[in-house]
């Protein structure tokens, strides 16, 4: 059964509206140097310390394409199952702004490096295919800082010239949940490929959201508004929610929607008009005469293809086949490359007599809870895959109970301690000797005769009481399965 988020409809009077969403995702290319210069791209450096003469647009400076960034874009294109264009062209997008030193951004307008592709989303009610329109390479601008000086706007050019991939989806998205799943999937694919770190806090991944509404069932697209530069999935969802309702309200009031660019105000949770179509910039695109058309050979593309790692969709399929995990579990495990790698390491370290189901439960349960709590990535996990594997094995072979395991898990977090050592040091080994347990149970029955009689007379709920007593007396170390068996026999 699925919780039905598959439809996101807005009801007004007799009308039912659906929302049509397309995304332009700006993903910073993982690369040590910029798209057309050799300056460093490290995040968080002192302002204006990673700026070359090219980035600052000094007279006579010329752009030279960074081959690595081209490879990264092609790699991403392959990950999106997209057409790789052997010939693409860099254009100049002309506009004036202080953080745009050249007075133009070098981008790809008519002939992008990557053409149409697809991304598959795992939604609760099944898979959904989202079309990719194109992916092109472009330069990022610098940063204008308006709140550091009371009189002046300051400009930091560290980001100026950093390579971005603009990934444009088709208007295939219909709900805020799909938008979330799409951005996560895109990010996951790029992290697998190592082409974008997807870090939204640092601005490595941001999106322009195009939204229109129409009466459900119509196949005509409504007038769209573009919400610029939204930098978190939550804000995207909030913006869509606000904007879709705003558009429906306008239509219901008999007004028309202006095609315009809007901003999302995260504090007020509303979108505001930035500029209308009439005031839209005329960017005067034309091919950059400083750069030749970008031509890549089949061999060049094939070489990159040979380097493509197993991607989320393929990995998911393999996990289901190889480890017999459920589709749901597989989706969670492959959603992030580090999680998938952690999981596979746990499996490998568990050795022959492995309980994968148990391992998955521990990863997605206890471990995820801890990571979430401490706001850590799995790559920063306080418990290594090796030690988690040991813990699962200790449960599996009956050395400890699941309950004790939780105690041990807490202790392991202090310096990634080996669970076996904790068991030995604290004497937490499970009591699985039937004779010892029988003696223990005999004593409990003896001490609680009346309750034993009540149980025998049919008060079956009391069985739990005896189990609890056994665990309490044994300090939690009694093997629960054996306790059950013996109790049933003795009572």
């Amino acid at each position, binding site marked *: 059964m699925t919780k039905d988020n598959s439809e996101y409809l807005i009801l007004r009077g007799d009308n039912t509206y659906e929302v049509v969403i397309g995304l332009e995702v700006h993903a910073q290319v993982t690369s040590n140097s910029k798209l057309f210069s050799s300056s460093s791209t490290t995040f968080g450096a002192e302002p204006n310390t990673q700026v070359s*003469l090219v980035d*600052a*647009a*000094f*007279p*006579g*400076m*010329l*752009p*030279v*394409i960074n081959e690595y960034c081209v490879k990264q874009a092609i790699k991403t294109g392959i990950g999106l199952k997209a057409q790789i264009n052997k010939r693409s062209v860099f254009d*100049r997008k*002309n506009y*004036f702004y*202080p953080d745009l*030193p*050249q*007075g*133009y951004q070098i981008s790809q307008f008519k002939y992008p490096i990557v053409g149409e592709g697809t991304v598959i989303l795992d939604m609760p009610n099944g898979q959904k295919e989202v079309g990719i329109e194109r992916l092109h390479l472009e330069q990022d601008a610098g940063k204008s800082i308006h709140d550091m000086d009371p009189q002046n*706007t300051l*400009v930091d050019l560290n980001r100026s010239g950093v390579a971005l991939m603009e990934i444009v989806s088709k208007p295939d998205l219909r709900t805020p949940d799909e938008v979330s799943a799409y951005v996560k999937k895109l990010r996951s694919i790029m992290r697998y490929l190592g082409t974008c770190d997807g870090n939204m806090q640092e601005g490595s991944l941001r999106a322009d959201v195009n939204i229109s509404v129409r009466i459900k069932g119509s196949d005509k697209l409504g007038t769209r508004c573009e919400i610029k530069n939204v930098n978190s999935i939550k804000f995207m969802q909030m913006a869509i929610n606000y904007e879709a309702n705003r558009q429906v309200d306008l239509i219901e009031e008999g007004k028309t929607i202006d095609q315009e660019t809007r901003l999302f105000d995260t504090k007020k949770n509303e979108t505001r008009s930035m500029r209308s179509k009439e005031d839209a910039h*005329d960017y*005067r*695109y*034309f091919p950059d*005469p*400083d*750069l*030749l058309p970008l031509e890549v050979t089949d061999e060049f593309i094939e070489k990159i293809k040979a380097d493509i790692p197993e991607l989320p969709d393929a990995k998911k399929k393999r996990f289901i086949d190889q480890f017999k995990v459920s589709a749901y579990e597989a989706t969670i495990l492959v959603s992030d490359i580090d999680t998938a790698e952690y999981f596979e390491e746990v499996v490998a370290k568990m050795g022959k007599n492995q309980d994968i189901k148990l391992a998955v439960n521990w990863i997605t349960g206890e471990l995820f809870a801890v990571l979430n709590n401490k706001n850590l990535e799995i790559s920063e996990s306080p418990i290594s895959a090796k030690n988690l594997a040991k813990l699962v094995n200790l449960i599996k072979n009956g050395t400890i109970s699941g309950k004790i395991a939780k105690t041990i898990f807490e202790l392991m977090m202090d310096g990634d301690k080996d669970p076996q050592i904790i068991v030995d040091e604290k004497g937490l080994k499970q009591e699985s000797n039937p004779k010892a347990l029988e003696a223990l149970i005999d004593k409990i029955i003896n001490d609680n005769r009346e309750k034993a009689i009540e149980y025998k007379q049919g008060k079956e709920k009391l069985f739990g009481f005896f189990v609890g007593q056994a665990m309490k007396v044994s300090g939690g170390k009694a093997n629960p399965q054996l306790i059950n068996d013996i109790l049933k026999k003795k009572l």
Partner: protein
Amino acid sequence: MSDITSLTLTELVKNIKDKKISSEETTKAFIERGEKSRDLNVYITEDFSNALAKARSFDEKPNFDLKLPGVPMAVKDLFCTDGVKTTAGSKILNNFIPPYESTVTQNIWNEGAVLLGKLNCDEFAMGSSNETSFFGNVQSPIAKGLVPGGSSGGSASALAANLTPITIGTDTGGSIRQPASFTGTVGLKPTYGSCSRYGIVAFASSLDQAGPMSKDVKDCALLQEIISTYDDKDSTSVDFKRNEYSKELTNNIKGKKIGIPKEYRVDGMPKEIEDLWTKGIEYAKDCGAVIVQISLPHTNYALPTYYIVAPAEASSNLARYDGVKYGFRSKGENLIDMYEKTRSEGFGAEVQRRIMIGTYVLSSGYYDAYYLKAQKVRKLIKNDFDEAYKKVDAILTPSTPSAAFKIGEKTNDPVSMYLNDIFTVPVNLAGLPAISIPAGVDAKGYPLGLQIIGKAFDEQNILNIAYAMEEKISFKNKITEWWIK
């Protein structure tokens, strides 16, 4: 020994290598003459004391294996020179000192030359008379009140007036060849991609090319082999086999086929230009060349095409001069006001005109009709040359449709000014090499040049033809030194 400043580069180098003169003496001679010639207004920036210091240091540890051992020279102020003000003839770069060196000038210093200073030019190389410079117009040494041509007008004047033994200019639509023609000197526009554009203030990136200007063809060949290098800092630089042009220079051009394009016989062409061309054809025949009549059918469209493509690129290339990062900035009420005031006050009228033309032709709704159409015509013009070169080895035309004109004569008539480039712009649009050599004078005694256009990367061939014809023409520039008091 005769006046140092009147020697050709080749003679000068020989004298220095033979230790007949030192670099310091040579440099002093050019400086002294430069100081006496300020009425020509060729220098935007004199770097004389540094030049002397560099010359002395060369003399202390001379290296005569270099091709330009301690030779002083001045360069067009469009080349960025490390630590020396570079203005591009504009107020907007009036205070700009680059912390880097252009590849072309670096190549020159690497061969031992010494910078004398930066030469006047039209603002951002936009002009054909050196009258658009923020630093005032340049006088031609040929006659008082005469333009030296442009945009490399300061370079041409300085060379003709013996203020530098050799120089470099840039040529986007004729800016080397036209001033060379006006001043009785030699100027080569190399094939696009031959000389690096790195560190040259850009005018129109797909057309700009640096090139040598000299007193004779041999000097021109020598400087070309020095400045032309493959440069990975310029994506349009081409990695082809470059000759040692001066070593391989020969006057044997027997059997070379030289094309005469009928479309260059334009309406209203003065008779003296017509005669010069006819004379040129005779000289070429005398040298053993075979004359072939050819057609370049799209020639008529070259000028309008050029005046769409070049301003379009310029409008974008000059966007960086916005008062934010370097150069001139005007105070404004707000950002837009600052931009508008900075660019209105920082750029001169001709530059503003071209920025506006360029912005217009790239605007949405006009792009297809102007810019895209112009690019298509450009391709047709290139095809014309490709077709012609199936039949001939080079093409001979006049360099300009007239001799030099008076200062102020055409300043209010931009179209008539643009017509000056009618024979030179097709070459830039096609990316070909072409050389202008002095070949005669008009009725007033003002020099006239002939242009030899070559196949792409075939600089050696046109240098050879120019070398052979130069011998036959034996042109002598008559300079009266009217400006020296």
